[in-house]
């Protein structure tokens, strides 16, 4: 009897074979999400009254927070699942983080066993969460995890938003994020990216801050502010330095909110002094990650590594702009353009927010201050996107998603209040309808309606996960083996499950000329001598990312490395130009 795949796999394959079924499920989930977002408009009408008891039970169920959480997760999964099985995509960054996570799982330490270049160690470390979730540490597991991570960011924003705006507004404001993260097929949006950990940390920091600013429990307030500060500082320090403008903006917004809060609740001790403990908690929280990092570097003696390979490397990277600051507005449009539907998504949400600016009454100070904060956050996010000066980095756009949704939330609330004050009938329905129309028509239209990604190809999903090289090494690998890949193909770590034998998962900074090249080359040789990895793959070959010409970029072009490999390794096979070397057994004895 031929081997039958499990029922769930067969189900996926069936849906994949029938495009209509995919779209039916995806858009039904979208409709569910929209209905769950709008349901509180009926159950919790404007004016603060609770209409829940008068509503049908089905509607109350639809409006329940638990079901909304499920709807958000289901929405991301329903649209995105074909990409989970797509195997390696164009950008090898995801494989780099998986390689880092595999190394950390084997007891590696940041800057001692792995180096994440322009990202911090939290980018791969976060992927270790796949293990308690029961997900494999490969492309499939990481993509599922990415969808969950994005859902978590959206839910954190919702929890923060409902502290300030009506429940339906906080829910509906997730629409731009859903448009961006669920409905776009561009590889950089669908795969795990180094920005996502930062975005999650900042989203949770924002949530903590929002609760802290609005709670009346002073001790909880201090704890949450310290936590918010710690998370906000961790994001740029240990996950992605690029998120620094966003973290600073969030810190500023929280500080201003704290300093302004006593004005709403005057206390005898004076408005500023009442805010002092909160400010101190926030600042101390923000200082904590720096202290921890300092201690870690001191204990392991990694100060020099950190200074040269993290600080200087990032400074050099940022200094090598491909465009000037005056061109950054055009550059931002150019970064958006390749992601089908992203321009419509961003312009729709920003357009609605700009439109809202004109409708907020001058006297509505709370709305103005929230709008100012939201615009500041969005500006910081856009600055973070353009600051590295690179055009072909669409994954930077992750940084914009949550600020865009937050701006949508405060804009929606402001317009709704304006229309309610003007006694416009069904103001909520009018505003929600306009918002959905402006922010979603374009992106939804741009979601490929004819062909789902991977349509009809899921049957081969297992074959997509690994190459001949990966299979070969996997078959011969033994527990404890380590791998070094020369070139820019960290995917071989993912395919083989082998951790890194040197701190680099790719050799971009070792091969490319640059002020730090000699440092990187020395460190690679040092790692090779210290770790004695059993496998060495020279992936400079036709069809590979980054480096294809062996004569220009092969490992032989570095004399010390060539001699080292010739002395200690044997060529065991060559697959379409990819050379697999194994350490000579004599070296192990």
């Amino acid at each position, binding site marked *: 009897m031929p081997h039958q795949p499990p029922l769930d796999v067969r189900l996926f394959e069936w849906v994949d074979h029938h495009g209509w079924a995919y779209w039916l499920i995806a858009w039904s989930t979208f409709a569910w999400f929209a209905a769950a977002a709008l349901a509180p408009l009926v159950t919790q009408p404007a004016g603060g009254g609770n209409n829940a008891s008068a509503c049908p039970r089905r509607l109350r169920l639809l409006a329940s927070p638990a079901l909304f959480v499920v709807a958000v997760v289901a929405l991301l999964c329903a649209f995105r699942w074909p990409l989970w099985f797509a195997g390696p995509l164009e950008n090898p960054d995801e494989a780099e983080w998986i390689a880092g996570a595999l190394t950390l799982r084997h007891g590696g330490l940041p800057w001692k066993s792995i180096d994440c270049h322009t990202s911090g160690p939290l980018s791969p470390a976060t992927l270790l969460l796949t293990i308690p979730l029961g997900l494999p540490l490969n492309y499939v597991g990481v993509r599922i995890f990415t969808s969950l991570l994005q859902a978590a960011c959206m839910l954190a924003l919702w929890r923060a938003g409902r502290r300030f705006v009506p429940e339906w507004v906080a829910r509906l404001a997730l629409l731009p994020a859903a448009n961006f993260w669920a409905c776009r097929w561009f590889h950089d949006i669908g795969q795990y990216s180094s920005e996502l950990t930062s975005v999650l940390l900042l989203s949770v920091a924002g949530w903590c801050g929002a609760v802290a600013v609005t709670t009346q429990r002073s001790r909880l307030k201090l704890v949450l502010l310290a936590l918010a500060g710690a998370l906000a500082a961790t994001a740029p320090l240990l996950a992605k330095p690029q998120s620094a403008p966003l973290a600073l903006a969030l810190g500023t917004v929280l500080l201003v909110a704290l300093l302004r809060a006593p004005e709403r609740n005057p206390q005898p001790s004076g408005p500023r002094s009442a805010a002092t403990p909160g400010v101190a908690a926030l600042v101390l929280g923000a200082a904590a990650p720096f202290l921890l990092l300092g201690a870690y570097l001191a204990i392991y003696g990694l100060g020099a590594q950190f200074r040269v390979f993290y600080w200087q490397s990032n400074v050099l990277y940022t200094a090598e702009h491909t465009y*000037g*600051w*005056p*061109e950054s*507005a*055009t550059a931002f*449009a*150019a970064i*958006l*353009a390749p992601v*089908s539907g*992203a*321009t*419509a998504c961003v*312009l729709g949400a920003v*357009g609605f927010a*700009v*439109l*809202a*600016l*004109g*409708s907020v009454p001058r006297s509505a100070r709370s709305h103005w201050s929230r709008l100012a904060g939201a615009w500041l956050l969005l500006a910081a996010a856009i600055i973070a996107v353009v600051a590295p000066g690179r055009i072909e980095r669409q994954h930077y756009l992750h940084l914009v998603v949550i600020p865009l949704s937050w701006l949508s939330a405060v804009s929606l609330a402001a317009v709704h209040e304006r229309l309610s004050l003007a006694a416009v009938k069904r103001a909520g329905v009018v505003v929600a309808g306009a918002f959905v129309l402006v922010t979603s028509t*374009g992106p939804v*239209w*741009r979601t490929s309606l004819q062909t789902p990604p991977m349509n009809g190809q899921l049957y081969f999903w297992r074959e997509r996960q690994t190459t001949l090289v990966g299979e070969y090494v996997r078959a011969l690998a033994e527990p404890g083996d380590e791998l070094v890949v020369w070139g820019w193909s960290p995917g071989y770590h993912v395919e083989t499950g082998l951790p890194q034998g040197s701190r680099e998962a790719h050799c971009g900074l070792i091969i490319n000329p640059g002020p730090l090249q000699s440092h990187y080359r020395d460190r690679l040789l040092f790692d090779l001598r210290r770790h004695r990895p059993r496998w060495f793959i020279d992936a400079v070959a036709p069809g590979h990312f980054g480096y294809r010409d062996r004569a220009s970029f092969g490992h032989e072009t570095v004399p010390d490395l060539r001699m080292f490999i010739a002395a200690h390794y044997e060529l065991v096979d060559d697959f379409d130009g990819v050379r697999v070397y194994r350490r000579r057994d004599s070296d192990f004895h």
Partner: protein
Amino acid sequence: MLDSLLSWIAAHVWAYWLCALAALFALLATTAAALVPSAYNTPLRRALSSRAAFTLAVIAAFLAFRWPVFFAGPLHNPDEAQWIAGALTLRDGGLPWKNLDSHTSGPLTPYALLLTIPLGLPLNHIGARVLATLFQIAAVLALHATARRFTREWAARAAVLAAFPFWALSTFHDLNLYSSETTPLLLLALGAWVATGALGSAGRSALARLFGGGVLIGAACFAKPQALPFQAALGAMLLAALWRNPRPAGATRVRPLAASAALGAGALAPLAVFVGYASLFGLWGQILQFFWETNRFYAGQRDYPWWSSLEHVLSLAAPALAAVTGLLGVTGFCLASSATAWRNAPEARARLVGSWFLLVVAFVAVATPGRMFTHYVHLFVLPLCWCAAVHLDGLFQGEPTADGRLARAQRWLALAFAAAVLAWPLWERLSVPAVRFELARWRELQISAIGARIRTDMRPGDRLVVWGWTPEYHAETGLPQGAREAHGAFIIGESALQERYRWRFLFDLRRNRPRWFVDSVAPHAFAFSDHDRYGHQTWPELRDLIARDYELLACLDGVWIYRRKD
């Protein structure tokens, strides 16, 4: 004298910036003067707020930023040279579709360049660029004159600033050279100005204005069929205004039906002239096959699908310095002020809706051909100016109070608008070299070795045919076209229409017997650079004709120059 002046400025860039920024300051000052309450009746205010001063300031500001590009010689896009070649042919007595074919543009595009002659400008790149700038200045002044009929003077003046990033600050070639959009935009702007003069007035003069406005608007598609959406939108808006227009106090109003008829008759007049011309010269076959079919074929071959227009329209604007920031700055300001303007001025709501409608129409016109050509951005400029005018005006209602509160608010608003529209584009402009082109070598830039070689041997009455896509040789030599094509895109490029174009090309060569034939398929040439693949010898009939009737005079930089044997 001119040589030394340009060399001096090229060596002293601060002089360029001093003049340019002073001219911009003058423009801002004349705009601000309109905001000063009339109670401050100083001579300076009177001088600055006069329309003559504003007009001069607009001309000076646009010219002060743009002039270095006048002397830059041929730029990347050969379209301008194509229109110059067409104008040279028309000057020599040529007729549209009989002696020249403008492909996706109409005959008015090269015809308009003949205005260089009465203006005393040369019919080459320099003259064409000066004329393009003058056309753009005339278009914004016509828009200002139209806007002041509906809005406050300061709003109409400030709206002109919306054109500044595109037509003064941008250094991108497509926005600086004479383009096929330049003439239709001027016609539409003038048409709107003339026709709106009839609103609220009565009598024969009103009907005459409407007729004149209709003629100008109706003629735009004979300069560029892409202007059709604008013509339809402008016509519809004018008709709506005629039927909704309130009767002015103490005056009679022209009857809507008669007014509509005058406007319609005017709009149809260019079509009637066109039909008469085509019938008289027996050119219907040419027009149907080479204008109608070509445009249909062109519009059917999109580079991007309709549904991705938003990204592609932004992407096509992206290469032009200051265009994206100008576009977003004006649109953002108008969007932000739309709710307030809507509330403040119920009587102006139709204008607000109309201004957004025009912007959408501009978007449709830009996206319709489905090509990534940056010069399409021209089509956004006037709708953006109009949008700015009605939104600025709508933001405030009523007259200034005794303490001048409203006037102060208007000043802040004008400042905010100027910042939104100019700040970032100006920053971009300041970040690139002030004088991009080698001004000191401006004469050398006007002519290549090939053009110079032909000029040494050419005689009056000579004609030139260029094989490839290099109509610059017409501009360099001043020779008219010997075939209806100024470039060989449709003859060389494979398409459903290729056979027709090839047949006509050979027909023209045999009939016109041009003295010069240049095969410009050479390395670094525009579009066709592989001589083995695209050279004239790849087409046997043409190869035989050239071998029989022409002699190879020279081969310079891979360009083959042939002269007729007889």
